[in-house]
């Protein structure tokens, strides 16, 4: 509730800055009230201790989202020799991490983490992003201008851009299979394809309980942390690991504040400048030119 109020306030303040957008406030009122962590948002818990790096999830995602065939087939595990990131052709990728002192590597699947308060959404000046009540962060390509601020803002380096397209380049990222599955209450394609039950699909709040239970039952196996429970305001996709998170490619410096909280310092300045500056500078003008005026009046009296 607190977050919602702040969001509304920030929106209002920038509206003032935009002068002519009183109409837009009404238009966006729905978006502002539905912003924040939804109580029934779904999520996925990724258990790195179970993943064997078979890339079945990558193949399933490729098929479900109708992405182009990759240069190397999904059976080819040599791609794991290099660390990869999400791209316009792959919304999810698996990377391998050798852990010092352990005899076997760990594998980590990356895709959009579907933040509770997504940085991409807050940075978008055409409102192309939506956080749905089901938990997915989806994107409307028909309004995207292509400024790519969302790619700057994403702390997880997830959104990719189809630079090669001339007439319709768009941002491409995992959308939690929203259109084809999540909307109907079904788990995303990668979750269904996983042969090792690495991925647990469920309500986000239940997943946190499950994660804590696993940590409690096997304290020797798991790191005592669910990555994504609190990071940048919490994410729908969360992770359990047997190795310290920074050794498996996670950025452990990200605080618990949503990215928006860093921006609001500036946003609060906006209404102050808008309201104070006119009177202040008109006052300066009167002060600076008062002598000229006096001279003129004296002259006219004579």
């Amino acid at each position, binding site marked *: 509730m607190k977050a919602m109020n702040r969001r509304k306030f920030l929106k209002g303040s920038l509206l003032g800055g935009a002068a002519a957008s009183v109409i837009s406030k009404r238009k966006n009122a729905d978006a502002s009230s539905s912003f924040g962590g939804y109580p029934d948002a779904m999520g996925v818990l990724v258990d790195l201790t179970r993943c064997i790096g078979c890339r079945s999830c990558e193949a399933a995602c490729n098929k479900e989202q109708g992405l182009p065939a990759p240069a190397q087939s999904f059976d080819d595990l040599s791609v794991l020799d290099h660390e990869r990131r999400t791209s316009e052709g792959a919304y999810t990728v698996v990377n391998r991490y050798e852990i010092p002192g352990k005899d076997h590597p760990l594998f980590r699947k990356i895709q959009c983490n579907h933040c509770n308060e997504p940085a991409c959404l807050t940075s978008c000046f055409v409102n192309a992003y939506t956080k749905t009540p089901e938990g997915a962060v989806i994107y409307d390509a028909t309004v995207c201008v292509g400024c790519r601020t969302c790619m700057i803002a994403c702390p997880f380096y997830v959104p*990719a851009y189809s630079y090669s397209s001339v007439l319709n380049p768009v941002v491409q990222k995992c959308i939690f299979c929203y259109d084809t599955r999540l909307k109907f209450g079904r788990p995303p394609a990668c979750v269904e394809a996983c042969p090792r039950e690495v991925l647990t699909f469920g309500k986000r709040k239940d997943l946190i309980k499950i994660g804590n239970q696993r940590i409690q039952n096997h304290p020797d196996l798991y790191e005592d942390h669910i990555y994504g429970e609190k990071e940048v305001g919490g994410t729908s996709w969360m992770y359990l690991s047997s190795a310290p998170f920074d050794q498996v490619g996670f950025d452990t410096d990200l605080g618990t504040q949503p990215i928006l909280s860093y921006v609001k310092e500036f946003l609060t300045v906006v209404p102050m400048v808008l309201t104070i500056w006119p009177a202040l500078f008109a006052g300066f003008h009167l002060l600076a030119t008062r002598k000229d005026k006096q001279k003129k009046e004296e002259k006219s009296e004579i």
Partner: protein
Amino acid sequence: MKTLIANGKIPLATHYNDDRSAKWSVKDKLLLGLSLSEYLAQAFRNPLNWFFAVIFSFGGYVTITRFIFGLGYVTHSSYDYPWGLFLGFGLFVMVPLSASGFMLGTAVEVFGRDDFKPIERLALLNGLLGYLFAVIFLQVDLGQPWRLIYPMFVSLGPAAVLFLVAWHVATYLTVQVAELVPAFAEMMGMPKLKTFIKSMILGLTIAGIILSTLHQGALGALFTYAPYKVHPLWMSAPFQWFHYFCSSVFAGLSMLIVVSTICKKTMAWRCDDNFLTSLDRLTIGLAKGATLALITYLVIKIIAIAHDGDWGYLASGWGQWYMLEMIAGVILPMILFTISIRNNLPGLARFAALIAVLGIALNRLNTALFTFNWKLYQEIPHWRELVITITVYCLFIATYRFVLYRLPILYTWKKDEEAAS
């Protein structure tokens, strides 16, 4: 042009021709009162035009390929570095260097410093063209430039910082056009238009201050979306907007000193005595303003490091790079400006201004490109990206010169009676 003046030609600055037999036509005004063959001959004699010809024929070709083959053809299509030179240089460097318009507008119209009038219009033009070309750079960089008006009318995201930048730059461009209308009206002989603008000049100027404060700051605030990607020494969430606003003050003033120097050196024929004789005095005056902004900036930069507890970073390699930027780009020009003010050395102030301009360019490039993703790898722009950036900047210079040759910016348009005498 110098040769022509030596041969007795007078640069066009009135409505009537030399013997007052006829009014200059618009065509005459565009051709500077020369015949077409004379105009072309002087254009061919100018070596800068040959340089431009080379740049535009090759760079123009590369620029066109960006719109035919897409961004992927001219950049490295980096997902990790979504912004390259087009925004890193074109937007983040051009905009602070264009702050001169609102600075001088404030000095003259708000504070009543009429002694700065000879250079006010140059400051306004520097602002207008700088912003215009920042938008052109943006249009090269946007994935779908034809959707530029979407944030205004089609789909609005009013809580985003970029939304503010878009609206403010658009509004401010309009304000700056209005502020320069008097110059255009004088030349085209439309006194009523000039009176109309003059009647609301105070409102326009204050609108300019508001818009400038906010969008200069907003450009800095854009990086607060990436608090973990920009190096902490260049990124301070609470202070970022003020760093950007404060540095734009001395950036704009220094750029004005640099531009006025270039005008004096390369197109003295177009400047009138009023401009040329007062320029040294004005340069020192601008230097005073720039020095005040520099010291404020230096202090607030240090406060930001103290507030965020970033002292430890100063010992790292990035820290040395940071200190180089601060010493060469802020402290050095500050000292040189001070010496020049105390000893009345306009030449030294001009040199200091050039250093300050380069310093601010380094600061913006550091934030947007060099220290961005400091935990990852360093992106080196594609050569085509560099070529396009140079081409657009040359177009900026060519447009700048085109306007300066014609509109009464550096000279005063002679009233009909004066011209007659």
